[in-house]
């Protein structure tokens, strides 16, 4: 067990616990926020796992999660727009905290990878992750206010 796997276990423990607790209890707005944060918290965990197992091809998993996780949140933001309109979830604190976690993990892994294509791939994953989550949070807090149906 190396340090990377230890870090991955810690990040995953926090991420899994927080998203599981948030998504299964409370009002709808908090559940949607927790679903959005599950992407932001588990994707850094996957990146750390890839580094811990020393398999660069596992980065593809994090890439796909960073791409598709926000898309899943947009699905809920769009199709639950009516229910969320009354009490739009504004959880900017946790959102920025998760974005900071993603940034720190990507920065550390980039520093380890050194300049090269692997580093650019990590930066792409990080940009997609942070950007996607901020946009998904924005969509949840009224991004689809004018959408009545369709």
């Amino acid at each position, binding site marked *: *067990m190396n340090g990377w*796997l230890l870090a*991955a*276990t810690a990040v*995953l*423990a926090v991420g*899994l*616990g927080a*998203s*599981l607790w948030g*998504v*299964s209890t409370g009002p*709808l707005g908090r*559940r*949607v926020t*927790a*679903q959005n944060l*599950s*992407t932001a918290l*588990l994707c850094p*965990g*996957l990146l750390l*796992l890839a580094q811990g*197992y020393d*398999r660069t*091809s*596992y980065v*593809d*998993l994090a890439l*796909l*999660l960073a791409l*598709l*996780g926000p*898309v*899943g949140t947009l*699905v*809920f933001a769009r*199709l*639950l727009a009516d*229910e969320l309109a009354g009490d739009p979830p504004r959880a900017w604190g946790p959102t920025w905290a998760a974005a900071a976690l993603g940034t720190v993990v990507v920065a550390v892994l980039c520093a380890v990878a050194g300049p090269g294509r692997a580093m650019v791939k990590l930066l792409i994953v990080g940009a997609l992750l942070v950007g996607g989550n901020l946009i998904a949070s924005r969509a949840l807090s009224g991004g689809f206010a004018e959408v009545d*149906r369709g």
Partner: protein
Amino acid sequence: MADAVIVLTLLAVAGCATAAVVNRDPARQALVLAVLGTVLAVLFTVLQAPDVGLSQLAVGSALTPLLIMLTVRKVRRRSAAPKDGRQ
């Protein structure tokens, strides 16, 4: 100690799956199911099965929620329409 992460993700999968069954509202179930898809992908990764993890990620994170939520929307529109004529 290296198995700690496997135990952790297995527990999370069990908890998430239980939560998906305990919730009765389809929209909330879909939310739990989306998280369950991601958690399962992490489990497959720590079990060294990245191919299955990728399949789970591709299907579970966006496609299944979209199919479920579209079905929920259709059912809700259908039950709402005859009563007050509104969509």
